[in-house]
């Protein structure tokens, strides 16, 4: 028994801590959401009435259809713009590839609802472009509703498809394509019959990420959907407005969201199960010899896509320095918006920085050991940990937030309304990224390095510190920063969990949006962009090696 503990002590400790943490702050809240959806208003009797009332309501059914169709359309659009982009970048000799790659990854770390808000500022009812067009006498229908939401998702989420696809295009053994050509297939046919089928798993995985992100996103539909029902937004509205103690209807919507993502996950698994191929030894494809016209076309396409995705963010930054009178743009540069934003206090900015730092450290401390176990100590426990620790990404932030509030608003551990509950929610939500990034780096570190160290007389724990951690450091820092940045722009769980003193920048912007402070909202968005771009730029060299593994 002592020998067993000595040998399994490290995995056991990590396993117990991880299971306890996820059990208390992820599984228990979800079970409570499920429970709430199955109880009547008194909270005492089991009933399916909530499901019946939601599923027979045209409003909520419409919300379900809206959510699913928008998510599916966004995934499709992301594939349609992302795969050609990946192909051009992987195979054509285009100038400025490193810059293109860096810029292409940027939308993933920038808050997507800022992009949605920029669309409103530019193309909304009183948008800059709308006004311009109208004054020129050109009729323009504003971009509210599904088309606007899909456009924003496509432009902010396409990197989820494009980045893995670039890696996949590059990793295809060139000789497989050469064999197809040698057998008489024209380049187009090779692409259709060999190349694309080979990278299909990467494309599907990316499309699934887009689908899930689009399904759970709160900020973008909140800005753009107007009165069209979207599940993640309606769950929040119901939860806030629910009069009874039991958040039954919100619970039903939450369960529906989880069911949708689970079905999507399973569908992707089944689609990929029969396609377990890899192309053995890799002789990566050289850049294609393309005509000057093709090269120019590819370059124009890539730069246009990257530019279009980033223009909204740039526009918001510019607009934040313009003068507003109420919602109306007045012209002239000033810092008024920022003065107004921070008139009451700098507290939201301080909160964002502090909570993001705490959450990033927490997610790293829990996620890295889990990643280590998953890769290095294969067992049933580590397999289970892998599944549980990476499943939070399939749960909408709103739903997790509701679950946490329901679970921890009373009793001995009543933490609702504190900073702690927010940090816990962030850690749970970002844990999949930490685990994935840690395991991705570990996959690149040969286990015989650790064995060599142990063989030379250094005990396992000391080996972990002296060999493994130094080798993982770049990846750990990269993961830490990406977690920080994505927490800083988190809105969907925050909006449910925050209380007055713990307002964050995202909430400040959200409130400015609800009010009439267009300029203030733009200023908040600019502050958020700065909060994300600066850390990413600082560790860019580290991230460049790992940005792909994060996905």
């Amino acid at each position, binding site marked *: 028994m002592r020998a067993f503990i000595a040998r399994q002590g490290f995995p056991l400790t990590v396993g117990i801590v991880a299971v306890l943490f996820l059990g208390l702050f992820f599984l228990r809240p979800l079970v409570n959401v499920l429970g709430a959806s199955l109880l009547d208003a008194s909270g005492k009797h089991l009933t399916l009435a909530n499901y019946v009332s939601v599923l027979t309501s045209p409003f909520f059914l419409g919300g379900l259809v809206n959510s699913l169709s928008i998510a599916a359309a966004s995934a499709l659009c992301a594939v349609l713009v992302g795969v050609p982009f990946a192909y051009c970048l992987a195979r054509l000799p285009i100038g400025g590839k490193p810059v293109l790659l860096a810029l292409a990854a940027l939308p993933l770390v920038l808050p997507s609802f800022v992009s949605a808000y920029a669309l409103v500022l530019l193309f909304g009812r009183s948008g800059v472009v709308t006004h311009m067009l109208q004054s020129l006498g050109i009729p323009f229908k504003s971009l509210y509703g599904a088309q606007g939401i899909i456009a924003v998702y496509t432009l902010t989420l396409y990197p989820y498809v494009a980045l893995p696809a670039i890696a996949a295009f590059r990793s295809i053994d060139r000789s497989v394509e050469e064999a197809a050509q040698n057998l008489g297939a024209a380049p187009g046919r090779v692409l259709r019959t060999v190349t694309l089928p080979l990278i299909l798993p990467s494309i599907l995985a990316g499309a699934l990420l887009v689908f899930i992100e689009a399904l759970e996103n709160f900020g973008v539909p909140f800005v753009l959907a107007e009165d069209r029902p979207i599940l993640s937004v309606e769950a929040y509205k119901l939860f806030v407005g629910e009069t009874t103690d039991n958040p039954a209807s919100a619970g039903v919507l939450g369960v529906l969201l989880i069911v949708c993502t689970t079905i999507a996950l399973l569908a992707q698994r089944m689609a990929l199960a029969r396609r377990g191929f890899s192309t053995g030894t890799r002789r990566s494809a050289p850049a294609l010899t393309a005509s000057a016209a093709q090269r120019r076309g590819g370059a124009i396409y890539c730069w246009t896509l990257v530019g279009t995705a980033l223009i909204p963010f740039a526009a918001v930054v510019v607009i934040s320095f313009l003068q507003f009178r109420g919602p109306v743009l007045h012209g002239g540069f000033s810092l008024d918006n920022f003065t107004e934003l921070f008139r009451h206090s700098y507290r939201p900015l301080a909160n964002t920085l502090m909570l993001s730092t705490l959450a990033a450290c927490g997610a790293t401390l829990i996620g890295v050991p889990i990643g280590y176990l998953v890769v290095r100590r294969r067992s049933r426990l580590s397999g289970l940990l892998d599944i549980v620790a990476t499943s939070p990404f399939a749960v909408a932030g709103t739903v997790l937030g509701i679950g946490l509030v329901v679970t921890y608003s009373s009793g001995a551990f009543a933490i609702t309304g504190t900073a702690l509950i927010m940090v816990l929610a962030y850690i749970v939500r970002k844990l999949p990224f930490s685990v994935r990034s840690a395991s991705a780096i570990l996959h690149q570190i040969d286990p015989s390095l650790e064995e*060599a160290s142990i063989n030379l*007389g250094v005990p396992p724990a000391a080996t972990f510190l002296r060999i493994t951690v130094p*080798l993982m450091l770049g990846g750990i820092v990269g993961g830490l920063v990406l977690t920080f940045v994505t927490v800083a722009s988190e809105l969907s769980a925050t909006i449910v969990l925050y209380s007055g003193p713990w307002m964050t920048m995202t909430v400040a912007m959200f409130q400015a949006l609800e009010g009439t402070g267009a300029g203030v909202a733009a200023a908040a968005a600019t502050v958020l962009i700065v909060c994300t771009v600066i850390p990413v730029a600082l560790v860019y060299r580290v991230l460049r090696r790992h940005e792909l593994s994060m996905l």
Partner: protein
Amino acid sequence: MSAITIDGVARSFGGVRAVDAVSLAVRDGEFFTLLGPSGCGKTTLLRMVAGFCELDTGRILFGAERIDTLPPHRRNTGMVFQNYAVFPNLTVGDNVAYGLRARRVKADDMRERVARALKLVQLEGYGERWPHQLSGGQLQRVAIARAVVIEPAVLLLDEPLSNLDAKLRVEMRGEIRALQKHLGITVLYVTHDQEEALAISDRIAVMRAGRVEQVADPRTIYAWPQTPFVASFVGTTNLIIGTIKSRDGEMLEVACAGGVLHVHSATGNVGEKVTLSLRPEALRLLAAGEEAPAGWARLTGTLGAVEYLGPVTRFAVTLMDGTALQMLALAPPAAAGTVTVAYDPRNIAIVSAP
């Protein structure tokens, strides 16, 4: 430096018996090779000695001390990994000093021992370099220096040459052998390359499917394989199944291949079914009218395909019943059509286990 005793060691993965009741005794200062195809359990056995793979049953001893219960970092083995496993975050010197630091060797002593180890592997003055500045062969030398500098009880080498190109492989195996003799250290060496095993070892254990088929010195392994597997895995051979027809002293007549083969052997009873191993170079094609050497026997067959390989020529002779004998000769065969093959009955091995 010490002898290794592997006593009834077994390990299963899932339902597969990776190592199946293996017992071996490696002598002190011996160069002992585990030879076998991939998946035969040789690497698993080596990793059991190093402590990276647990035993289901059995014991492993260094000298009189039982070590299979010790954690890997306290076994004092020096291991050279297939992919070198040189720490990329440490310089060459720090890599070699790594095990000495773990043993808290004093700084002066350590510097001197590191320098000596680097000199031993012909990397004098490379201490300040980084691993990424070295070639594959040089990384291999660093890995060896790092393993021997701690003066381990045994040196474990896991296919150390498989990542090197053919020429460097031959050069390095000579160096490893010379180093082992110079240090007088016990070596357990894993390889799937039979030529390498024959060239470098004091003794070889041929493994197959988790079991040891035969343990012997290289000459015995090659000339007197005990099982058909050993005969065909080490070198090329012709395996022919037959029945012992008669015995006259130590000379047997074996009915096979549509005729009779004469075999010199002290064992084997009349009526017993046996497998014979005829090495290609033990057979000689007789020119027309040439007499077979004294004591040799003759076979008749038809000359088949001829392959010119440079220093030697390989060809096949088909016997009466259609059995094809692979043969080697220095010069391409002059004859054609029906030919006569001579063989020495003392060079034919009976390989099927009695």
